[in-house]
């Protein structure tokens, strides 16, 4: 019997091959995308699961009075907390301090370097491939590698006990290798060093005071700890010990599971978006199949009746139908898996890999995804197999045999709501895509307060092997560039727009009693000229008299306003409660967007630092005459080949660098574009199936109308009118939702486009034309049919 069902199913699918193909296509693409989206969500959720007892691990978040917050705290706080709070079982810092160059044999490499306390493994008992948690950080000169780094250096060998040379001087012993860490994990590690190593570093010692917040701390708390109480305790410690506790409104003890969302806020949006999108796509696919299957059922009423007369029962009918859908679903799962591995996963890694790391599929760890896909398939099959049949199997045989079904209003309302739902979703995605597009376009083209064109940016933070030699060669290069007629301006600086450090320093004005948090950078005297940032007041740096005892600074307009000043005459940049007289402020520059437009322009200070010091600058910026970019780039690159460095010199155009800030949002846009296309495609597939079915049902009516003199156009309108109305209703539902969602999203940008009516109109038009096209093909076909033929068949 089953064999018979199977044979029949294949025959049926083949008989309606156009429809089957459309179904297969929609299902494959739908399931493929759902698989991809769900896989990334799954990868995200399990990424931190290798941290044992994560629920007892917390970190501290500092909330400031101005509404900002950050996860870093001052260095001595951890010891203070540990010595006063018995509920803390273990605690560790985890921070970077420049990525160290490591040497193993003749290989030199640099990796993300994190420093942690010896207690690190008591807090995070990350599984070790080699080595022992208790001894890993016992010795000062030890290093723990991630699996990836270990493989790079030693292959499959166990490297524990071998030694590495760090920064040309230190000999470190490898004491452990971590198990592979998912790129979605909160740990972004290459190598892990004990921070006892840094205790000798004078620069580090200087920073570990009660005013400089640069390291997050992680605490493992006793499970019985009252978090609210502990929070108060920490708050008190902070108020008592911080150099300047007045700017801090409160401390928050955050569970470690929040840390990923905290560090990259878009992650939350992306993950939520992924879940919502996969849900919607799945819904679309389901609704689509339901619609098409209901239509098929109409055609099959007679068939079912005959089977019943011959002795069949309802179960048989349902089995047959489920089997047919099951075959479709099975094939589409196979196709979508191929899509997933061959196209969608690599594509997703392309889009998001740069920010989140590439994720790979491994059967050992990710089998739940496969099980999920199969469960999903079974569910889809059962729903679309059983639901549409229910109405038909209960139909009396004597009516079914005549091919008559009472076209009860109920089913039409249901199906119409399905269509409305489909198109609402599709139009919603189109709206999102359009608004996203215009926001990104706006951000890329916006006036940033500086001239981004014809500026070459070279990265000169290259780990020079011989700093003195490098500096003198660099000086020669600078002189050459300044002498070059195609070069208008040259500058070296610590930062360029799109890459300013997030180091905040609070300055104080005793007159206005204002605390202002600044971001800092160091530039030479050519920076403002190179980027053509105008001065509002005062003067630019000048190498001829700024190399004296005091380092002059230039602040931006926001900073001046934050202090409540109208002029900088005689002003100095001072710390609170400090004897330091402060840096003289010599100029005010116009607010320019040194970070992306998602963030407002914050107070900024540039310290003067002369241009020749390679060690203290990270960027070389050169403004050149239009069209000569390539020539100058070649000159600079050639000069750097003669300087001994560990990293390779790389350069780009400032414009590209600025646009590059939006890579992640660009990626989101690409995804949304694809999803929008997908949803409208799937909806149209369903529509196509429906109208061909409706045309068949109304074939007699069309025939009669034609005999009575209706033209082709009239009939096309007759057939499509209802659907166009449904699409219209869908649009009306989608617009406010899109408006609400996108206003919320745009609200997260400091600078954004405003939502215009034409964006919705455009989305509506796109949906309308695609629908009209789909409908048109089928409607015209039916309208052109010879009425004599259609009337006779009835």
């Amino acid at each position, binding site marked *: 019997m089953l064999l018979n069902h199977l044979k029949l199913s294949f025959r049926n699918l083949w008989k309606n091959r156009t429809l089957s193909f459309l179904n297969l296509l929609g299902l494959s693409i739908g399931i493929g995308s759902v698989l991809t989206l769900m896989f990334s969500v799954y990868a995200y959720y399990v990424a931190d699961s290798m941290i044992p007892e994560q629920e007892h691990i917390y970190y501290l978040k500092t909330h400031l009075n101005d509404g900002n917050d950050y996860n870093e705290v001052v260095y001595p706080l951890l010891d203070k907390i540990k010595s006063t709070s018995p509920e803390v079982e273990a605690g560790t810092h985890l921070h970077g301090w420049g990525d160290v160059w490591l040497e193993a044999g003749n290989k030199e490499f640099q990796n993300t370097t994190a420093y942690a306390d010896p207690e690190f493994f008591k807090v995070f008992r990350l599984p070790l491939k080699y080595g022992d948690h208790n001894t890993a950080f016992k010795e000062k000169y030890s290093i723990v590698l991630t699996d990836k780094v270990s493989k790079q250096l030693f292959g499959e060998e166990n490297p524990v006990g071998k030694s590495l040379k760090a920064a040309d001087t230190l000999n470190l012993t490898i004491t452990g290798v971590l198990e592979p860490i998912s790129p979605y994990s909160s740990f972004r590690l290459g190598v892990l060093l004990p921070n006892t190593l840094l205790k000798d570093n004078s620069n580090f010692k200087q920073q570990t005071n009660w005013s400089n917040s640069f390291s997050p701390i992680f605490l493992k708390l006793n499970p019985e700890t009252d978090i609210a109480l502990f929070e108060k305790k920490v708050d008190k410690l902070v108020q008592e010990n911080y150099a300047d506790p007045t700017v801090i409104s409160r401390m928050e003890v955050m569970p470690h599971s929040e840390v990923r969302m905290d560090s990259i806020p878009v992650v939350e949006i992306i993950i939520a978006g992924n879940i919502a999108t996969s849900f919607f796509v799945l819904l679309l696919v389901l609704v689509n199949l339901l619609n098409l299957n209901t239509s098929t059922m109409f055609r099959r009423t007679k068939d079912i009746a005959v089977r019943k007369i011959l002795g069949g029962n309802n179960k048989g009918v349902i089995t047959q139908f489920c089997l047919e859908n099951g075959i479709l679903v099975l094939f589409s799962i196979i196709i979508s898996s191929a899509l997933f591995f061959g196209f969608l996963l690599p594509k997703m890694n392309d889009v998001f890999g740069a920010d989140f790391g590439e994720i790979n599929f491994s059967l050992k760890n990710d089998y739940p995804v496969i099980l999920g896909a199969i469960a999903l398939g079974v569910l889809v099959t059962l729903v679309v197999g059983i639901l549409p049949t229910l109405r038909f199997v209960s139909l*009396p*045989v004597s009516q079914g045999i005549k091919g008559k079904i009472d076209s009860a209003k109920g089913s039409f309302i249901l199906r119409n709501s399905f269509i409305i739902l489909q198109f609402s979703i599709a139009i919603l995605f189109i709206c999102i895509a359009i608004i996203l597009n215009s926001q990104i376009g706006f951000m890329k083209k916006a006036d940033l307060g500086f001239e981004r064109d014809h500026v070459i940016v070279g990265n000169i933070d290259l780990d020079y092997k011989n700093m003195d030699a490098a500096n003198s060669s660099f000086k020669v290069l600078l002189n050459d560039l300044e002498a070059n007629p195609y070069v208008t301006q040259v500058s070296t600086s610590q930062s360029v727009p799109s890459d300013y450090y997030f180091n905040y320093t609070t300055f104080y004005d005793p007159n206005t009693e204002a605390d202002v948090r600044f971001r800092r950078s160091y530039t030479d005297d050519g920076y403002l000229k190179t980027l053509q940032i105008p001065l509002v007041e005062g003067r630019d740096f000048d190498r001829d008299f700024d190399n004296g005892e005091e380092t002059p600074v230039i602040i931006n307009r926001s900073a001046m306003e934050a202090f409540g000043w109208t002029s900088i005459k005689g002003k100095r940049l001072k710390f609170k409660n400090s004897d330091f007289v402060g840096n003289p402020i010599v100029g005010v520059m116009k607010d320019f967007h040194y970070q992306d437009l998602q963030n407002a322009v914050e107070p900024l200070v540039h310290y003067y630092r002369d241009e020749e010091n390679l060690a203290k600058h990270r960027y070389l910026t050169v403004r050149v005459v239009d069209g000569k970019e390539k020539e100058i780039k070649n000159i600079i690159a050639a000069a750097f080949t003669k300087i001994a460095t560990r990293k390779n010199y790389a350069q780009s155009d400032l414009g590209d660098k600025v646009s590059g800030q939006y890579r992640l949002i660009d990626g989101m846009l690409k995804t949304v574009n694809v999803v929008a296309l997908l949803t409208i495609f799937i909806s149209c597939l369903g529509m196509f199936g429906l109208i061909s079915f409706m045309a068949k049902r109304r074939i007699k009516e069309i025939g009669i109308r034609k005999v009575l003199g209706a033209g082709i156009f009239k009939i096309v309108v007759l057939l499509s009118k209802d659907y166009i109305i449904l699409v219209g209703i869908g649009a009306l539902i989608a617009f406010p939702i899109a408006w609400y969602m996108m206003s919320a999203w745009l609200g997260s940008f400091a600078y954004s486009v405003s939502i215009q009516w034409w964006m919705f109109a455009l989305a509506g038009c796109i949906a309308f034309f695609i629908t009209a096209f789909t409908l048109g093909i089928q409607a015209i076909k039916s309208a052109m049919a010879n009425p004599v033929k259609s009337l006779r068949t009835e």
Partner: protein
Amino acid sequence: MLLQLKNIFKWVQQGGQRVFLLKDINLEVEEGEFISIMGPSGSGKSTLLNVIGMLDTFDEGEYDFLSESVHTLKEKYRSNLYKEYIGFVFQSYHLLDDLTVEENLEMPLLYKKIKSSERKALVADMLDRFNIVGKKDLFPTQLSGGQQQLVGVARALIGKPKLILADEPTGNLNSQQSEEIMALFKKLNEEDGVTIIQVTHSEKNAEYGSRIINLLDGRKI
């Protein structure tokens, strides 16, 4: 006695009024009879046939089939009853288009859960008897109307029913094809003793039967 209808009424509500489809029908059918039901369009011929075939219900009256009172039976038993004893032949054949001739014949046997070897034998036997062995792998749409109806009759017969109900079996056929089908019915009735009730418009076809029942507006005349 094969079946007996007593005071059968069937009606539908239309605009608050009862419209009678069948009105006080009394009918007794003995085994081996060949009955033709005649009457103009809308007189209730097909409805009567459906009631006899248990495909349709009635609103009043009693119906005994092989001394089982059908009107008191549950749907499930009723369908078991007609599956077992009744074969249907339709005006528009109602063959399953997705199945070959052979598979169409096999279908009722499948539902009766007859073993594969036995099924094959029965089907081969039927193909042979109706001279359609050569057509067994064709699909219904590849056959002429007469041939399709031949398959329809064969399918109705394969379950060895006591009663065959035929609703205008020759309605879609030309005169030569009709004669062949009617001759077949006659032969089945006479040689195999199968009871046949047919609905027909044609006086000529009605002649094949042993008894004629005339209906008008749902009433026997």
